[in-house]
């Protein structure tokens, strides 16, 4: 039962073949069996989840007309607030804080009757690509427990690939949904910036952060996308327009005549051979389905990483200033308010977070602002222009999601630049505010680990991701004969 897709679970629930309570308990059982190995969760809300499931069951037995996902379990990245439930963002500095309010995403999930099992592990404040920067513990990739599950949302992707939950919420600032999806053989979508409310998403980089769905199938991701997206008056950057019809698009799955642009700059040197092979194979499949493949060039993408590592740290240096030991979370040390703040921040923030706060503080300081933050904003405009030009030539753009498959835990933890390079293909999307999906393209021959295929579409054309993604997924499934995750080693 727990290995089904969320769509199939939803159908079984609707037909009363299974109760939400049974389904929820089955997932908690799975978690208790495998999570000591995977370590995807930071906090389980067993009681709250079972109560929510029972509530759905009661409403269903009364004959209420329930939303599609009512009763389906979900894992929530620990960066989203949920009233009364610990929210740490993977940081010691927020240990013990229980937010007094629900994020809009959680409000939407609750309205849809989705059962929230607990909070998943992440790189501290979403800064990282491996979940090794969690202040609590690393998360392990279910495909190979010695490897990273990607980051920052490694907990969410690991949870769904280990069948601990059929759905999860991630957040993507530079690839934190898509890169974990790629290395765990799952689906992840970064919606258009402003498509999903950021209210209650603890900010890392406000102009880049975006919450989105993590799932095992494209249709499941679409169902979750529709449940959480839409205009929110509490978020000024939320787009006031109808949600793109992503579920309909996932069901259409037709790429005949679709123009697909392959981004020249996002392949070649630095990309693992097995990843590129799977990418080529997927392109051939799309071509065989009647899509037209063209090459596009986005020369400014070469500067994307540099611009990102100025803009994101700059915003984070300001966003994280509020963690000062005065009102919530950790407080340690003695002396004046300033001394207590300094000691708390020293003890409460990890190395990567401090690195980025210092970097951002420097980039924003007077005399350096124009050279760093100012230039980075100009690059951002150039990247937007590159996307706009490319979307004139093609309806969607594609690339490998990450240059490599999952690397070993500890392999890159002392080399931040090597770690940053893992996001080279995902970052431009955030800088431009457009949308993108990662879905599994198969296993790399050399290490038998999942590789990711990235699809990008213009702002508010998220439906295009689901249409093309579902078409490719259908063909790959036929080729493999079973879902990719069924090829993963058994964890028991």
């Amino acid at each position, binding site marked *: 039962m727990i290995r089904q897709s969320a769509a199939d679970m939803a159908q079984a629930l609707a037909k009363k073949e299974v109760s939400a309570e049974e389904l929820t308990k089955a997932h908690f059982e799975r978690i208790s069996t495998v999570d000591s190995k995977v370590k995807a969760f930071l906090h389980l809300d067993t009681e709250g989840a079972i109560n929510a499931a029972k509530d759905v069951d009661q409403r269903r037995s009364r004959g209420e007309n329930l939303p599609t996902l009512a009763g389906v379990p979900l894992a929530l990245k620990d960066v*989203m*607030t949920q009233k009364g439930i610990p*929210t740490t*963002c993977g940081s010691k500095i*927020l240990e013990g*804080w229980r*937010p*007094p*309010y629900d*994020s809009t995403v959680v409000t939407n999930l609750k309205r849809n009757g989705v059962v929230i099992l607990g909070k998943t592990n992440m790189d501290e404040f979403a800064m990282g690509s491996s979940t090794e920067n969690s202040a609590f513990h690393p998360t392990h990739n279910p495909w190979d427990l010695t490897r990273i599950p990607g980051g920052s949302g490694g907990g969410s992707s690991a949870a769904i690939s280990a069948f601990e939950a059929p759905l999860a919420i991630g957040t993507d600032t530079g690839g934190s949904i898509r890169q974990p999806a790629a290395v765990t053989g799952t689906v992840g979508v970064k919606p258009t910036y402003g498509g999903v409310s*950021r*209210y*209650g*998403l*603890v*900010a890392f*980089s*406000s*102009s880049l952060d975006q919450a989105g769905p993590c799932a095992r199938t494209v249709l499941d991701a679409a169902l979750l996308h529709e449940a959480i997206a839409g205009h929110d*008056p*509490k*978020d*000024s*950057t939320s787009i006031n327009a109808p949600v793109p019809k992503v579920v309909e698009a996932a069901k259409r799955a037709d790429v005949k005549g679709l123009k697909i642009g392959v981004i020249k700059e996002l392949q070649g040197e630095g990309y693992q051979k097995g990843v590129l092979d799977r990418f080529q194979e997927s392109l051939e499949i799309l071509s065989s389905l009647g899509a037209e493949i063209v090459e596009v060039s986005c020369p400014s993408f070469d500067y994307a990483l540099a611009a990102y590592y100025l803009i994101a740290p*700059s*915003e984070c*240096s*300001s966003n994280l*200033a*509020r*963690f*000062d030991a*005065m*009102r*919530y979370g950790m407080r340690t040390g003695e002396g*004046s*308010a*300033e001394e207590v*703040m300094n000691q708390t921040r020293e003890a409460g923030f990890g190395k990567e977070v401090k690195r980025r706060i210092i970097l951002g*503080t420097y980039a*924003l*300081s*007077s005399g350096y*602002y124009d050279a760093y*933050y100012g230039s980075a904003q100009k690059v951002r405009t150039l990247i937007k222009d590159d996307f706009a030009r490319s979307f004139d030539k093609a309806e969607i753009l594609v690339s490998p999601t990450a240059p490599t498959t999952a690397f070993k835990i500890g392999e890159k933890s002392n080399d931040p630049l090597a770690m940053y390079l893992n996001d080279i293909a995902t970052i431009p999307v955030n800088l431009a505010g457009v949308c993108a999906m990662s879905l599994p393209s198969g296993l790399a021959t050399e290490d038998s680990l999942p590789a990711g295929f990235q699809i990008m579409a213009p702002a508010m054309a998220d439906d295009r991701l689901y249409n093309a993604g579902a078409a490719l997924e259908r063909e790959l499934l036929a080729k493999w004969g079973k879902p990719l995750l069924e090829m993963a080693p058994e964890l028991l």
Partner: protein
Amino acid sequence: MAISYDEVITKYDPVLGLEVHVELGTASKMFCGCATVFGAEPNTQVCPVCLGLPGSLPVVNGKAIEYTIAIGLALNCSIAPFSRFARKNYFYPDMPKNFQTSQYDEPICVNGYLDLEVETEDGVKEFRVEIERVHMEEDTGKSLHVGGATGRIHGADYSLLDYNRAGIPLVEIVTKTIEGTGKYAPLVAKAYVKELRDILRGLGVSDVKMEQGSLRCDANVSLRPVGEKKLGIRSETKNVNSLRSVERAVRAEMIRHAGILGKGERVKQETRHFHENTGETTPGRSKEQAEDYRYFPEPDLVPVAPSKEWIEEIRSRLPERPSDRRKRLQDAWAVPDKEMAAMVNADVLDLVEESVKLGADPTKARGWWLGEIARIANEREVPASELSISPKDVAKIVELVGKGELTDKLARQVVEGVINGEGSPQDVIEARGFKVVSDDGALLAAIEKAIAAQPDVAEKVRNGHIPAAGALIGAVMKETKGQADASKVRSLLLKTLGQSE
């Protein structure tokens, strides 16, 4: 020996810069829906947004933008078609996010001016103060530092934080350098803040109470030798909490600067605090290094882009300018310049106007507000508007005096009674038993009694010596316990003694 003010102005030319912060009177805060009631229990008007809780996001209060545009228009500014919020980053325990959401290089209103008529010992002088910018920001919370000698955070045993004020919309109005005011600089500063306050009050965008901090002024003062073009080094004086203090603080800083310059020393560029009790300024916390606020555009908010139509709509609803209104009222009431200035200075123009609207004669109404009421207000060191006497009470008193139901003397006691909280004028009259004796029978009886008591005086009056009547009138007034109308007593008495005026 401190240098005298006269000496300061013969040697130096003062240059001012005034920054006024105004708390807008919106029902909700700048970026959330919390209430803004003054004096509420600490930390009862807060939510995740104004507490800066992780994950919360700001949403701009449309009313605050409307108010700010109205202020900009009233100050003859241009309204930017596109302006942005920025983050001003610095740490302070009463600032929940450790950055203030403000406007930096893209303010909403720029380049305005305000014309002033300044009453000086040399008559009324006109000055134009140019406005650099008007921008929006949010207020911080309030700290109460307990223990320690200074009331500041350093040396305190502990601090209490109230976030009710955090996020209240603030508008900052910044002048360009104000030059050429010479010896009138302190008066110009005061007149500017006063005119600004009247404009803001007229717009209804703030309650502009300086003593409650809803209007706060920072005064930048520098001196340069007379004839010199280059600006001197300025100090910025905060804590200036009344109109009188604005004038005093500027004057005190001019004298202090001149003292330093006179010794050939340099003025320190610093923040200073004004003390009402001593009339002097003391240095604020000296900063070890220049503060770098690391401004950058606020990514959580979208730009403010008011449409031309909206701006024009706001402009069409602007009330009459206070200066225009003063001219109109002065003409309508036929008030001499000096009296008009007295009303403006005593800040009773609104009260007089309201009394007149309720039927009082303008001269009589003015007489009360500038006379007895002003005297009591002075005595109690509060503005007349804060006394518990309303224009309605004054109109009633004027009416009763006009009808002869109250004498001037009794009316003064009624005013005092109303101010003391004894109720309406009628309540006071009733409670104190003030009843003007206008019944001819009662008055005649008292007159007969007075004549009988002083027959020789009565005889003098009968013989045409009218001034002698005063003694008899006094006796009648005494007999009636002052509750008779003296003019009526006089005419009845003279008639009784066969005389007339």
